[in-house]
C-alpha cells in the first residue's frame, strides 16, 4: 500500500530537494509517457523514465526510495532524447543526474549498477591523476574494481597494434588545479549545488 507516512526524521520530500538543487519541478510532468516511448533503453530499465518521475510526484518515501535504488538512473545514456521531445520541457537528464547523486550519497544503488559505477570511478581516477584519460590505466582500474578480468581480452591487443592505445599517460602541467577541482567537488560529502 502506498502511504505518505514519513517516519521520524526522514526529511523533506525528494521533489523539494530536486527543485532546490536543480530548479526542475516534478509537478510539471503530466505523465504522457513520450519520454519512455522514445528512450533507447526503456525496455532494459526496471522502471521507464516517466515512471521514475512519477515516483517523485507524490512525495511518498517508499516510492522515492524505489527511484533512487533503480537501475534506470544508471542506464540513462544522457542522449537527451527525452528532453528534446518532452512537451512540458522537463529536464529529465538533469533529474537523473540528481537522483544518481542522491543514490551515491545514500549508498543505496541497484546491484546491477555496480559495473557502471565502477567504470565511472575508474575513469575519474585516471583524470584525477593525469588531468586526461589514460585508457590503459582506465581498463586496468576498471578490471580491478569490477573483477571482470577477462573482458575485452581479445579486443585490447587489436587496439594496441593499431596504435589506438597510448602506452604512457599524458600528464598535464597544472595537475594541482585538477586536484583542487576534485577535492572541492567529488571529494566533498554533501551533495553538490
Amino acid at each position, binding site marked *: 500500500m502506498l502511504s505518505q507516512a514519513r517516519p521520524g526524521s526522514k526529511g523533506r520530500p525528494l521533489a523539494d530537494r530536486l527543485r532546490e538543487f536543480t530548479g526542475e519541478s516534478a509537478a510539471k510532468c*503530466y*505523465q*504522457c*509517457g*513520450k*519520454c*519512455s*516511448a*522514445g*528512450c533507447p533503453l*526503456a*525496455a532494459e530499465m526496471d*522502471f*521507464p*523514465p*516517466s*515512471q521514475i518521475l512519477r515516483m517523485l510526484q507524490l512525495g511518498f518515501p517508499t516510492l522515492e526510495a524505489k527511484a533512487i535504488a533503480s537501475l534506470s538512473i544508471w542506464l540513462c545514456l544522457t542522449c537527451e*532524447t527525452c528532453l528534446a*521531445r*518532452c*512537451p*512540458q*520541457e522537463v529536464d529529465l537528464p538533469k533529474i537523473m543526474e540528481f537522483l544518481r547523486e542522491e543514490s551515491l550519497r545514500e549508498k543505496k544503488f541497484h546491484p546491477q549498477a555496480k559495473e557502471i559505477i565502477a567504470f565511472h570511478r575508474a575513469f575519474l581516477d585516471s583524470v584525477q591523476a593525469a588531468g586526461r584519460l589514460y585508457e590503459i590505466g582506465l581498463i586496468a582500474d576498471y578490471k580491478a574494481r569490477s573483477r571482470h578480468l577477462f573482458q575485452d581480452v581479445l579486443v585490447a591487443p587489436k587496439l594496441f597494434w593499431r596504435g589506438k592505445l597510448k602506452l604512457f599517460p599524458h600528464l598535464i602541467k597544472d595537475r594541482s588545479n585538477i586536484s583542487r577541482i576534485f577535492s572541492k567537488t567529488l571529494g566533498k560529502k554533501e551533495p553538490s549545488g
Partner: protein
Amino acid sequence: MSRIGVFLCHCGENIAGTVDPGKVVEAVNRIPGVVHSIDYKYMCSDPGQSLIREAIKEKGLTGVIVAACSPRMHEPTFRRVCAESGLNAFLCEMANVREHCSWVHEKSELTTAKAIDLVRIMVEKAKRNRPLFPIKVPVTKTALVLGGGIAGIQASLDIANAGHKVILVERDPSIGGHMAQLSETFPTLDCSQCILTPRMVEVAQHPNITLHTYSELESVDGFIGNFKVKIRKKARGIDEKLCTGCGVCAQKCPLKKIPSEFNAAMGMRTAIYTPFPQAVPNKPVIDKKRCTYYLKGKCKACEKACPAEAIRFDQPDEIIEVETGAIVCTTGFEVLSTEFFPEYGYGKYKDVITGLQFERLASASGPTLGAIRRPSDGKEPETVVFIACAGSRDPAKGIEYCSKICCMYTAKHAMLYKHKVHQGTPYVFYMDIRAGGKMYEEFVRRAIEEDGVKYIRGRVSRIYEQDGKLIVKGADTLLGAQPVEIEADLVVLATAMVANSGAEELAKKIHVSYDSYHFLAEAHPKLRPVETNTAGIFLAGACQAPRDIPETVAQASGAASKVAALFSADELSREPVIAVVHRTAPPIFSICEGCFMCEQACPFQAIEREEIKTRDGKLIKVVAKVNPGVCQGCGTCVALCRAKALDLQGFSNEQVYAEVMAV
C-alpha cells in the same frame, strides 16, 4: 450662486455604525454654498427619495449630494429622482462614505472627520458642475458579419430574421467554412454537409442578407452604430451575372493537378474551379497564381469553352463601401499541418495525415468517395494509428492549450474507419479523454466498447517509415510506461486548432484585442463571452477559442441577440462624461496647438482632426476634436495635453483641483 443640498444616509448600521451622522450634518451645514443638510436612515428608499424631491422644490437647490454608498450602486437611482424633480441629472453627485470610509475604518473621530472631508470634496465639485445632456448617436441597422462558416451563417440568419440587414463577407470562394469539409459530425454522426447546406442556401436566398464571397475586409472606420466599412471584392475572373455555374470551364482547364484547398490537399483541382459541388454561390473562381493565362499569357481554354461568355480575365478587384451599425467577427480557425512535427517526419511521409485530411477521405464527396485509402499507394489500410494531442497541450511546441474537439473527433474517426474497414484495427494514443458535452461520453464509450477501438494511454515519441509501413513508437503508461511499437499503414494526427491565418491583421483592422495565440479577446471570459472591448464589435465561434459546433452555434446566436438589442432603438444614448477640446472666439479659436499627441494616445480612436477655415475656405489651423460617439471619458488625453486644451465634461480640471484643495 450655489445652493447645494446634502443628504447623508445611515444605510442602517453600515454607515451610522462607524460615522457620527449628527456631527457630519452639522459640519456640512457650515460649508459655504450648502443650504440644506440632513440625514436619514435609508436614502434609497421611497421616503428617502421624497426628501430629495421636496428639498429641491422648497429650497430651489442647484445641486444635490447624496453621501451614502458607491455611485456604482445608486447613482442612477438618485439621478433619476433629480431629473424627475426638474434638476439636471448630472448636477447630482454621490459622496462615497461607505466603501471609502465606514466600511474600511473603525468607529472613531477620525472616521467621522474623513466622512466630512469626503462630503466637502464633493460639495466643491458640485459647485462647479454644469448641466449635461446625454449624447444621442444614430444607429445604422445593418450588421457586418466577417466569415461565412457555421458561426457566421448562424449569426447572419438570426440577425436577418430579426428584421435587420446583414452583409456577410467570406474570404473563400464559397461559404461553409470547415464544417463543409467534414464527413460526419459527433455525437450523432449526422452528415455534415446535409445539415449545413440548407442553411447555406437560406443565407444566399434571404432577402435581408447580402453575400460577398471571395472578399475580404479592407478597412473599418467609425464607431458603434456608425461604422464605415470598405470591402475588397477580389476579382473572380468571371462575370457572376452571366455565369450559370455549368462547370464546363473546369472540365476544359488543362491544369488538373493543383492541390485542392477544400480537399486539404488529399485531392486535386483545376486552375478555374468551384471549391465543391454544393458551393454557395456555385460560381467558379480563377486561381491567378497558377492559371497559365495570368502567368504566361497563353491558353484561355475556359474562355473558349464558356457557353455564357462569362470569363473576364481583366476583371479588377472591386472596393465596396458600406455603412453598418455592428460588426460580428466569425472568422474561424485553422489546423496545424503535419510539417509542424519533426518527430513525425516534418510532413514528408504521405501516409501521416491530419484529422481534417482524414475527414476528406471519409467524406462521401471527397477525393476517394468516402473510401479510406493510403495517400501513398491507394491501398486500404489494415492498421490505423490515431494520435491525439498532436501539438496541443505542448508548451515545448508553443501551444499550451487544449484544442477541445480532438478527443471527440478522434473517436469519431476511429469509428468511421472501423465502419468502413471491418477487418481493420484502429489504435488511439491519448493522454486524457475530454468528452464533456451532451451525449459525448456515451459516444466515446461506443467507440471503445462496440467498435473495438484500442485506446492506449501514452504519447508517441517518434514515427518513421520502414518498408512501406509507418513505425509508431509510443508508450502505455497504464502498463508501467512500457514502450509500445505499432506498424501502421496510416497515421492520423489530431493536430492543434489554431487561429486562422491573417487573424492578427484583421484584429488590428477592427481594433479588437487578441492574445498570444491570436485568438480574439472577449470582453469578460465569464459574463461577456460574445462582446469585445470595442463597442459594437462582437465575436462568435473558433476565432475566439477552440470550440465545437453546438457551442459555436449557440455563441453565434448570442452575438446576434446582442446585435438585435443594439438595433432595437433608432438612437444610442451615451453618457456625456466625455472630453471636449477648448473652443473660443476668433482670432484664437482654440488654445489647442494641433500637436495631436491626444490622437495618438487615445485608446478608443476617439480624437479626430478639425480644420478651422476662413469664410473663403482658407485654412487657419487644424485642431483636435473629440468624437462624442466614441469617447469613453477615460481622461488620458486631458492628462496628456500640454496646452490644457482638453477638459473632461463632468470631471473638469477645475473641479478636480477644487476637490483636492478641499481635503
